[in-house]
């Protein structure tokens, strides 16, 4: 058995190409059944799949007439480009404060979000479960639910929510063959690196966006924040340049000091 498995791994080129072609012909976004036939063994070496996600909460104040629960909030995990995460994510479990009824809420279909009403801020535990053919353990994140804006001078309004989002990226390094085929053509993911097999260009096949799966037309899409790496990148590059300049200066200084030391020693010893 192990021999056969090894053989399959090293002979990945043939099988992967044929597998991808097979998958493309099938035209289904989720290929769980198909993949069950294939062994879950192969990992695509030298490849990294990045799925940028955004997770956070949007909270609306319910106005002066509200009763005990003063806010209505939604917490969610979405793709940073508002694509459909369900190719990768099987379900998301939100762990709420124990004072909520049934604090463990499982969302098994996109969009992966949860709406509730309440009055308190607390930490929400978010666990992302992947499909079985991804073959990975679940990821855990935490998000502090914010209901009240920082700026206390502005009175609360029911029109503008308090939005807190965090950007992060799920990285699958050396993903399983099965899921790789699905993800590489899907706009939700970004693939870096070269797989050891020749890349077969997709025959115009990308995943099908079933309506309501992605978050492009979500009710709250107007509040979604834009996350761009430009700001961070610029800051970092300028900082690096400055640091490099300072380092160069110091090196020169060190050199001259050293020369000075040697000179003194040479004259006196």
């Amino acid at each position, binding site marked *: 058995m*192990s021999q056969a498995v090894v053989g399959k791994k090293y002979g990945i080129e043939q099988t992967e190409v044929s597998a991808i072609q097979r998958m493309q012909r099938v035209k289904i976004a989720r290929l769980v059944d198909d993949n069950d036939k294939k062994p879950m063994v192969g990992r695509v070496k030298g490849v990294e799949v990045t799925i940028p996600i955004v997770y956070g909460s949007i909270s609306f104040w319910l106005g002066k007439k509200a009763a005990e629960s003063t806010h209505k909030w939604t917490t969610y995990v979405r793709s940073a480009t508002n694509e459909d995460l369900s190719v990768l994510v099987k379900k998301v479990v939100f762990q709420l404060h124990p004072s909520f009824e049934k604090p463990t809420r499982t969302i098994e279909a996109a969009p992966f979000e949860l709406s509730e009403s309440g009055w308190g801020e607390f930490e929400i535990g978010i666990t992302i479960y992947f499909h079985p053919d991804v073959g990975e353990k679940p990821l855990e994140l935490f998000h502090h639910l914010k209901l009240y804006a920082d700026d206390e001078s502005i009175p609360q309004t029911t029109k503008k929510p308090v939005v807190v989002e965090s950007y992060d990226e799920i*990285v699958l390094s050396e993903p*399983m063959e099965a899921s790789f085929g699905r993800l590489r053509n899907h706009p939700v993911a970004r693939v870096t690196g070269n797989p050891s097999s020749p890349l077969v260009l997709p025959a115009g096949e990308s995943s099908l966006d079933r309506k309501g799966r992605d978050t492009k037309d979500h009710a709250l899409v107007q509040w979604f924040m834009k996350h761009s790496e430009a700001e961070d990148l610029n800051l970092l590059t300028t900082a690096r340049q400055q640091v490099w300049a300072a380092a160069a200066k*110091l090196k020169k200084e060190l050199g001259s000091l050293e020369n000075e030391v040697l000179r003194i020693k040479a004259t006196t010893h």
Partner: protein
Amino acid sequence: MGDAKDILGLPKLGERGSTEKRKTPKDAIKKPDGIHREVYALTGGLPPIMPTLDPVSIKKRTLPSKKISWQWLPFSTSARTDNLQLYHWVRIIDDSQPSGDYAFAKYNKVVDSIRYTDEEYNQLLVDSSWSREETDRLFDMCEQFDLRFIVIADRFTPPRTVEELKHRYYSAAKAILQARAGPNDDLSDHSFFKDSYNVNHEVERKKALNIILSQSRQQDREDAEVIAEARRITEARLKAKGLEESQVSTRAALHVDTTPARLPSPAATGDISFLSVPVTVASTTSVQVTPVPTPASAPSSTPVQTSAPIPASTTPVSAPPPVGPRPPRVYLRGAWLAQQIHSVVSPAGVRTSKRVDQMLEEYGVRSKPKVPTAAVCAEHLELRRELLNLIQLQKQVQYKENELAILRENPYAEIPATPNTPKRPHRGLENERVSTRATAVGAEFEGFPSSGERVGKREHKRKVPKRP
């Protein structure tokens, strides 16, 4: 006159009278007739709220209804067999003496000793190494000393070891009991049979105890170390087995045949061979993790932690394991960056890492990037590394300046070797003259004048001993 007196006296009298009046009411108030006035005054001169002992009754005490006296009487006890007459004080109540046995007789525990008849001896107990008299004497002493074999051994005339005596006694007793026991009696409960005496085992055990007792402290420590090591190894082995099983269940493991990169270092006992199997498994699973950034020398540099590489492949949670910069399979980039930062910066020390954070703030860069994309993370990490470099450069410049200042004052001063930057592993090299100049250490700092500085230092060192 009477009026005048009255007028004069009465007010006086009146005063006195009032004081008297004040006094008398006080005396009149004096209620308690059983206790003194001053004592009563302790309560504030008022009767207590709670009903207390009626002061009247305090004087009289209830006389005990019974008449108690003490008598010096002889007594007998069942514990004594010699008819010795002893006396003691006895409390007599109403002219009747307490009955019953002496109260402490119940504490007189006796071992029921076994005696054999001649027939029994001849039938069961004839032994080559034990003569009849010796056996008799042994049994007598057992009875006399309540089976205290240490005492018996001490007094036994042809001196015999405790083990021999015990062995003889117990085997004889068992034989006798068995012979006497009828077919219905169950002897298996008897302590002689439940915990039967095993002479050889006892001899060995006492020898071993002696050895341990006479061991020096050094030996003790060594033994403790070996035991701890063995326990660690067995634990690691169990863990490896457990993880191996879970791996096999989730995905078919590719058993690439690699020679074990490292074996656990302690080979104190020769029994580590059984560990080579799980170790090979551990190393194969670690070989599987060959991500895009090839691991430095992570597999070979982790010494005893056989369990560490295994989490590398099986715990792809957002917190990757701290074994070198090797990414797990699935992770969140933000969390992964934090781990990488930690592994890069922490060897430099807490102070330096705090300095790095400070400097980041000065440049307006957040400790954790807001948008952790691949590019941003890479830049961030590089920036931190460069900041570290900068700090170390600054330190070196400072040292050099100090050196210069000292030299200017006193050109003949001996400058001790400045502490090397933490990234340089061979600290000891500076003091050994055997090292070569070509040793390029700390190659991480590009363009750093390492060779120049080293030459300077070494020349200095060589010059020192030449001076008379």
